[in-house]
């Protein structure tokens, strides 16, 4: 099966290991992975800040880059959600709306692709320790991917996954919110960190690099020894 990777700008520039893990995992499961070099960013930073004109330029570029793919897979619930929003954003532009629809229809978040398309739950991963999982807001509420991560993590040999109290609450990232509303973001992420600590987990796992950068950055700043892992890295652990 041919899979076109939308790696996201955060993974490309800051967390290449997440990208490597995604590729290795998909290849091990028999996918042929291609990576269009023209890809940049889905446009979310500009769109969510109100710069719709600038965001649309980025979006058109991404639509052109991905419109001929068979399956578009991305290791981010939030960026997948953005692709899914494209038709709505171009709703008054017939030509681009049609193209956007084609892209949106074949876009999958990584765990969603594994469970719904490849129909695998046990990817043969092994990781020893105790983990808790952060459900990111866009992925669960807007993309509607709620169970796939836990179904996959359940089969990771040696891994005990414990529930995170008040998991439904946002981590306080919110893109530019994290810098525009710094003091509020700080309190929000601190509360998240407290709940993570309560679980006594060795690992915090998530499926969105934005949230993980926020929570991970705060864990590091406050000297907590909890390792932050993207779910692709966990599923690629052997």
């Amino acid at each position, binding site marked *: 099966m041919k899979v076109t990777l939308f*790696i996201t*700008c955060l993974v*490309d*520039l800051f*967390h*290449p290991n997440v*990208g*490597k893990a995604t*590729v290795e995992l998909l290849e091990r499961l028999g996918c042929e992975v291609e*990576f269009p*070099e*023209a890809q*940049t*960013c889905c446009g979310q*930073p*500009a*769109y*969510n*800040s*109100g*710069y*719709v*004109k*600038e*965001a649309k*330029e*980025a979006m058109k*570029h991404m639509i052109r880059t991905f419109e001929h793919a068979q399956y578009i897979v991305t290791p981010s619930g939030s960026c997948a959600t953005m692709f899914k929003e494209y038709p709505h954003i171009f709703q008054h532009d017939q030509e681009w709306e049609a193209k956007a629809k084609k892209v949106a229809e074949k876009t999958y978040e990584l765990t969603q692709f594994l469970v719904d398309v490849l129909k695998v739950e046990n990817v043969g991963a092994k990781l020893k320790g105790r983990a808790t999982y952060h459900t990111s*807001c*866009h992925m669960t*509420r*807007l993309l509607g991917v709620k169970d796939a991560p836990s179904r996959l993590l359940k089969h990771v040999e040696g891994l005990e996954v414990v529930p995170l109290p*008040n998991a*439904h*609450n*946002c981590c*306080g*990232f*919110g*893109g*530019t*919110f*994290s*810098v*525009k*509303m*710094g*003091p*509020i*973001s*700080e*309190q*929000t*992420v601190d*509360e998240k960190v407290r709940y993570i600590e309560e679980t006594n987990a060795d690992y915090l796992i998530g499926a969105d690099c934005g949230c993980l*950068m926020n929570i*991970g*950055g705060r864990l*590091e*700043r406050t000297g907590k020894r909890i390792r932050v892992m993207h779910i692709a890295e966990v599923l690629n652990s052997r």
Partner: protein
Amino acid sequence: MAMKIGADSFHQRVEAGLHNSFMRGAVAGAQERLRTRRLDAAEELGNWEEWRALGEQIRQHTLLHLDYYLMQLSENVAKRGGHVFFAQTAEEANQYIREVVIKKNAKKIVKSKSMVTEEIHLNAMLEAAGCEVIETDLGEYILQIDDHDPPSHIVAPALHKNKEQIRDVFRKKLAYDKTEKPEELAAHARKMLRNEYLTADVGITGCNFAIAESGSITLVTNEGNADLVTALPKTQITVMGMERIVPTFEEMEVLVSLLTRSAVGQKLTSYITVLTGPRDEGDVDGPEEFHLVIVDNGRSSILGTEFQPVLQCIRCAACVNVCPVYRHIGGHSYGSIYSEPIGAVLSPLLGGYDDYKELPYASTLCAACTEACPVKIPLHELLLKHRQIIVEREGKAPISEKLAMKAFGLGAASSLLYKLGSKVAPNALQPFTTDERIVKGIGPLKAWTEIREFPAPAKERFRDWFREHRKERERDGNDL
């Protein structure tokens, strides 16, 4: 604008909120209780998503035909001997009510809870006209006797106060000598209020839903105070936002069920009262005179715009009860009687961007509000629309942000610029980097690194690795 509270800037208010540890504890606790209760009440009803869809449909239909239903309502109120006044502005509403009160020579007025009367600052006007105004909802009563502390939540206005604080207010203002036990506090308030109902000249209420087909108003409470406000004084004035209307009793029943379940997790509240016009011949109680004041105050200019869905709101506060930002800063931080998230959408529309331009940004766009809303208002999308207007039409965005976003637009729309920029980034940020971490950033990174570490851009981007990886795979493939 009238709904504004306090003169401090948004950031000053947030600062105060974040330092109010009691308030934050109370809000977090209330959010958790109310969220669980709401989910249980929805579960118990079953098919919640279908009920939400029906709620949305009812509200959208009513808004689409608002002129028709308002006319029908007004005719039916008149038929039953009531008076209807359409107030375009807060001033017009206040002026009309003032005239009624003066004509009745009213000295004492009892009120049940109403957000729209908060919005138009009715109490201040009535007091200036020489009337004594008594709020009878327990939460509102507490705030009123505490030197008019503004409400911090649209359903539980005194959410920010604990029982010890309330006891102290009672001791100071009401010569109260008992403990902080809620039962004792409530009993005292009830005793104080009982006489007020009996001696009031006018009763003023809000309106949860007006019913067009019968000219009735619906009041939803747990304390029964609205029933006394409407049963005892000789004159009743009901004030409603112009969108708070349903076509028939059938739709009212659906919306009341959505309201009580979403607001407080109850199947029904203790009192749901439907009143039609003044007292009829032979009735034992009820007002001799009934006035319905229908307030526009900026609502009609929302109709027909992309913000119209905000008028679907039934004021249940389910969105407030799940908001992670409200959780930490509390209701007073918003500077409006309507707090996040519904208030962050509504306040700039009713009160203008000058006073409320920060509110649409005080959201992580986590969409918990949109998910909780029983009438499916796309709240987080409306916040985004505000941001777009602030940037594009109002021109209120900071210049540095505009430049950054311009650069983003160029960079993200061109693979060449993106590739170049991302290649030089690690070198450009080298001076700020220790152990692959940026601990103290400059520019937009500064605000981030004040709170958290930031990863330095990777020396080898994913795309560089992938190129090598593919070459390797091809080599391996050729070897086979």
